[in-house]
Structure formats: structure tokens, C-alpha cells
């Protein structure tokens, strides 16, 4: 549990990519944690959404791309709706998923879902899942 912080991390290409992709100003977040407090999926997450933002602010690419949290965001927009600083965590999570998929991290593609579920699940769930979590 040790992080070395230098300009190499905090001004890395990774930080710039996350900001560009998400359109969110990472340092605009003052870490109040309201996004985490209202998130309906924290129970299943390994770190809380505000920690994902913190790790991203500090350029901790490895940690943040390997967390479960970004794949457990259901994009319900509760975080962004209540954020006092107008930062939308769901967009940051999406940017990180996008970067993760670029590294061939697939959480749920067609092969992951049992046929009987595919048969009964609503189309919108399938399309959304593959868009957010597949390759």
C-alpha cells in the first residue's frame, strides 16, 4: 500500500485521456464522497466511486483499471445528479471502461451469458451490456 507520486503520474497521458474521454475535470472533485454515499452498487464494489476518482486524479492507472467498481456502475446517474461540483462519475467510469477494453479487458460479452438468459432478457439489456462491458 504505497504510491509514489510525481509529475509522471499526475500529469500522465492516462490522466489526460480520462479527462478528454469523460469530459470531466478530475481535479474539480473535492472528494466529498457524495457519489459513493448515494451509489446503489457499492455493496458489490471493491472500492467506492470517489476512490476511483481519487486514483484517477493521481494517475494510478494500474489500480483503477483493475478495480471491479468501474464494471459495476449501472449508469443510473445518481452520482452526477447529486454531485455538488457537477462532476459525473458515470462518465469517468465509462472512460475507464473504454481504456480497459482497449487493454482487452472483457467483463461480459455474449459468451459470458447463458443462452436461457439471452432468450429471456430484454434486448436493451443485451445491447447495453455489450456496449458497456463487452469488447
Amino acid at each position, binding site marked *: 500500500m504505497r504510491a509514489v507520486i510525481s509529475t509522471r503520474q499526475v500529469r500522465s497521458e492516462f490522466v489526460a485521456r480520462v479527462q478528454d474521454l469523460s469530459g470531466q475535470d478530475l481535479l474539480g472533485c*473535492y*472528494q*466529498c*464522497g*457524495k*457519489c*459513493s*454515499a*448515494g*451509489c446503489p452498487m*457499492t*455493496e458489490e464494489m471493491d*472500492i*467506492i466511486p*470517489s*476512490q476511483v476518482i481519487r486514483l484517477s486524479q493521481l494517475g494510478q492507472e494500474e489500480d483503477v483499471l483493475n478495480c471491479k467498481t468501474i464494471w459495476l456502475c449501472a449508469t443510473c446517474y*445518481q452520482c452526477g445528479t*447529486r*454531485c*455538488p*461540483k*457537477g462532476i459525473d462519475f458515470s462518465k469517468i467510469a465509462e472512460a475507464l471502461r473504454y481504456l480497459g477494453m482497449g487493454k482487452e479487458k472483457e467483463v461480459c460479452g455474449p459468451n459470458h451469458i447463458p443462452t436461457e438468459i439471452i432468450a429471456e432478457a430484454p434486448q436493451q439489456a443485451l445491447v447495453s451490456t455489450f456496449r458497456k462491458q463487452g469488447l
Partner: protein
Amino acid sequence: MPQKKIGVFVCHCGINIASVVQIEELVKRLQESSGVYYATDYKYMCSEPGQASIRDAIKEKELDGIVVACCSPSLHELTFRRTSSSVDLNPYLCEIANIREHCSWVHSDSTLATEKAQEIIETIVEKVRLDEALDPIKVPVNKRAMVIGGGISGIQSALDIADSGYPVILVEREAAIGGHMAELSDTFLTLEKSSELLSAKQREVSVHSNIQLLTYSEVEDLDGYVGNFKATIKKKAKMVDWDKCDGCGKCIAVCPVKVPFDQEHPLGKENAIYLPLLEAGPKRVVIDKGICQHFSGECSECQTACPKSAIHFDEQDETLEEEIGAVVVATGYSMYPKDRIGEYGVDGCEDVIDGLQFERMLAAWERGEGPLRRPSDGKTPRDVVFVQCSGSRDPEHAMPYCSRICCMYTVKEAMVYRKAVPDGQAYVFYIDIRTGGKGCEEFTQGGIADNRLIYMRGKVSKLYREGDKVVVWGVDTLMGKKVEIAADLVVLATATVPSPGAKELAQRLKVSADDYGFFQEVHPKLRPVESPTAGIFLSGAARAPMDIPESIMHASGAASKVLALFSQDDISHEPIVAFVDEDYCSGCGVCVETCPYGARELQGRKRVAKVIEVLCQGCGACIAACPNGACQQRNFQAEQCLYMLDAAL
């Protein structure tokens, strides 16, 4: 008119100007310039030797006007005008040519910058050529002050002014003075009873021979100018003859109007007829016309119940006109309405209250009115959750600023709560603990340790009712987990906002308020207790959220500004004002409508427009608006400006 002898003094400002502008070349060109009689330079004109060289030149060369080419006039115009008048050159014949901010600081090409400096100076030389010698306008000062707002800030300002021997009118819109301080329980840092601290001050006010107390009154209008204001004050009808009333309370017992607990009101107001909290004064009731059912229906219960026949529903509001020389605005603060925070207001739950309501609950416990009870069912709350920054530091939905007082009062409330409910547990959600005042950090850390207060770093996202509990969804960012607490009572430290009506009052006083309604100071660092309108000063939380000690400091600061004003018999007013050439004025009145200061009026049988010089701020709006060119500004006359333009182009 004979040619004026104009001297130009070029300052190097160390290297600030001299490193870009070629001073030697500039002075040479100026010496050859047609309007310039004398030109010289010096390293620092504002230094004593620099000023001496100006004085000497004025005397030796018999100069009729001077231009100092240096920094911005906001820095040293006054300095050099004083230099001029010390050798009997009218100060309004001294002008500044800004060749630092407008030239050397913003340019790097030395040749071009030198040319520009020359043009700037020659433009100002043209101005001085046609400048008139002017004398400041003198106005007598009415040494009587009006303080608006009878909270702790207003009380302190009024006492300071009155103690110095000047009469003060203290105007309070509620029926008693004391403001929010009268509602508080123990105060930080000493945990002394707020009402006891306050009552000494209230008593001083009520017996002070220099203070005229106008309670249940509001300022309707303010006219005039520094030293000579005229205030219109509405004295609201109390509907009760205070000579007869003995505060027996029989009327209150029969009043059918109940004021809900969570409404903002001074302590004691539970019905339409109520006993205002007046620790230091006789107990007398008043009626709030706005909610009384006599006026909306036919109720006269209190009148029937009163054994002294003291209630008179036909009593009318009264309007007073008062002349004063200075105004102190001390209208205080209010709380951001908690029902505007949707995620905290699920189903209008009664057990979610704000900090001020909790103060009232704690104060009632301190007065011995029984154990602490929560609003919904009267149960003693065993688990209390405090939520800081409710509506503060939230630029997206509420107030972007830090409300400054909440960190301190929250820890204090949690400490008093633990005294009231020794086996209770208090939890505090915070983003940052901001306890910068003297003794505040020690008080906070001691309070947390001694009272087993659980502080959790994170903001609450949602509150909802489940059974008889209020479930709090928060987070502890230090632990990295979402937190759920089933609480009996939730106290929101809602944002501190201006007192209701502050913006409207600012309009009536013709001073500015910021976007939120806090009164605006002239300069946030250097002139924090002065409004931009001369003679109107700011005291306490009317300007920004602040705690009691800070409010008192601020209040004394505002009072000292009033006293500085009252130390003069008359005051000077800048003579750079508008004037009218009556031959050209058609009396159309456009200038009267345009003037933002009420300094223009149509006068006399000819109905020509006049300038009330003491009110005129020299903004020039009327001059631009006048269709006939009849309005002109002293030392900025049309002809003068045209010559200046010629020189500049």
C-alpha cells in the same frame, strides 16, 4: 485665455518604466512639445525628493498646471495633488498620465513604448490645459446614526456609537432585539448560555440614553447622502397597548394559530399573539398581523381573554421620518431552506431539522423545560446524525461558499447534546473540519475526544424514513465505505444565507448586494466594513457568514467608521461633478431618469435641470444622455475631450 505653463514630471518607477520607455528621449521630445513648458524626470517621483523637485519646479517656473507621468492614478493621484496644493497650485490642475500599467508593463518594444508614453502624456497635457481650478464641495454632517437590525452585530454597533456620545436609532423588524443569538443554547468556546450573554447587552441598549429603540419597525426608504440621510421607517402596529399589558399570557393560551416548529421565527413565537423573547425587559405581547385570524377571519379570542382590555385590532402602522448622518446595516443571516435539498427532505420528515432548530431544542432543555424531545413523537433521540455542508460548498445546487460557522456550532451542539442525553451517540458527517478561529481547533478536538463524537469524512447523499428511524446514507471516505446509520434525529448544518429581504433592503438603501444577497463591501481585504455608498457601513453577518466574536469585531469596526465620520463637522465631496448650461437645457428630464444617484432634478419655473452636487458621483451618465449637450462635467468638458482625442490620435 493665455497659454498655461504646464510642467511634466516623468517617473522611472525604478526600472518599472525606465526599462521599457526611453526616459531621456521621452523628456527631450516633451521639452520640444508645444503645450509643454517644462519637462524633467526622476527615479521615484513619489519619494520625498521626487515630490520636492515638483514643488520646487512649480514655484521656480511658476507652473499653472502639472502632469505626473507615472503609475495608475488610483495609487498616487492623491499624493501628487497634495504636493501641488502644498505650494498653492490647485490640486485639480494636477493630473496623472499612466505610463506604467498602460504602457511599460504591457509592452516590450522600447521604441514603440516610448512613442506611446509620449502620446499618453500629451493627451493629459491637453486635459490640464483646459482644466479649471476647483474646490471640494463642503457638506455638514448630521451626527446621528441609524443601525438596521437588532441582532448582536446591530446591538454592538449601536452601543459603540452611543457610548461615544452620539445619538443612535436602532431599528429592529421583530418585536424584540437579540436576533438569532436569542435562540441559541450554550455558545462556543466557553459554553456560556447565549441568552445570558445577550441579556446584558439587551439591557444596556434598553437603558442607554443615546439609543432610541424602534422594534417591530422596518426601514422603508432612504434618501440623501453621506452626513445627510433621511430615512422613512414603518412602525408596525403591535395591536397591543403595552402600557396595559402585563404579559400574563392568557391571550396566548386561547390563540388558535399555531406556528409550525420548523418555521423560522424568533424564540417564543408559537402563536399569532406571542411574547417576544426579551430577557431584559418587561414581558409584553404582540400580534403578527400576517398570520392572525382576526384579519383573515373573524377570530377575537385573545381580545375576549385579555383581562386588561389591552388588545386593539384597529391600531394602524405608523410612518416615521428620521434624519441621520450615517447608516449601519446589520441585518444578519438566515438558514438555507432545508426542503430545497430534495435528497434530504424525503416526505418532509419532521425529525430532519436544521442547526438553528436544534439550538432552540437545546436551549429549551437548558431552561429546564424537560428532556430533549424530537419533533415527531417526543421521543428522546438516542442516535443523532449531524450533516455538515448541507447546501454549502455546493455550486451545482445551492451555495458555492463555505458557511464558516457550521463546523464550530456542530461540534458544540453535539457536545451540548451529549450533556442533555448522556447515553446518546452523535455522528458528524463532514467534508473538511474548518476551525480556524482563536481557540476553535482546541475546542473541537477536545469536544470530539471527551464526548466520544464519531466524525465521518464524507457527504450524506440521502435521508429516508423507515419506521420511526431516519436512515442516513453517507460515506466514510477514509474507511472507503458507504455508511448507513438509522438515526432518531438528523441535524442539517444548512448553509448560512442572507436574512430574508436583504436584497430588497439593499435596493432601498441604494447599496449593492452580491448574487446571494449579502451586502457588498468596497474592498474585501482593505475596506470590509464600508459599503460603496459613502456613509453606509456593514456590520456582522449581513456582509458574510460569521460567528459571534467576529460579528462583534465587525460591528465595532463599522461603528468606528461612523465615529470617524462624526469626528468631522463637515465633509468634502469631489468637485468633479456634472453642471448644466441653462441656455441649452430644454428641461426634457432625460438626465433625471438617467442619474443612478438621484442627483438630478428639474427646478424652478423654467424647469431646467439642476445638479445636486453633493449627490453627483461624476459618473457621466447624464452627460451622455443629454440630447442638447447642456450637461457637462467639470474638467471633462466636451471641448477638452476633443483636444485630448486629437492628441491621442
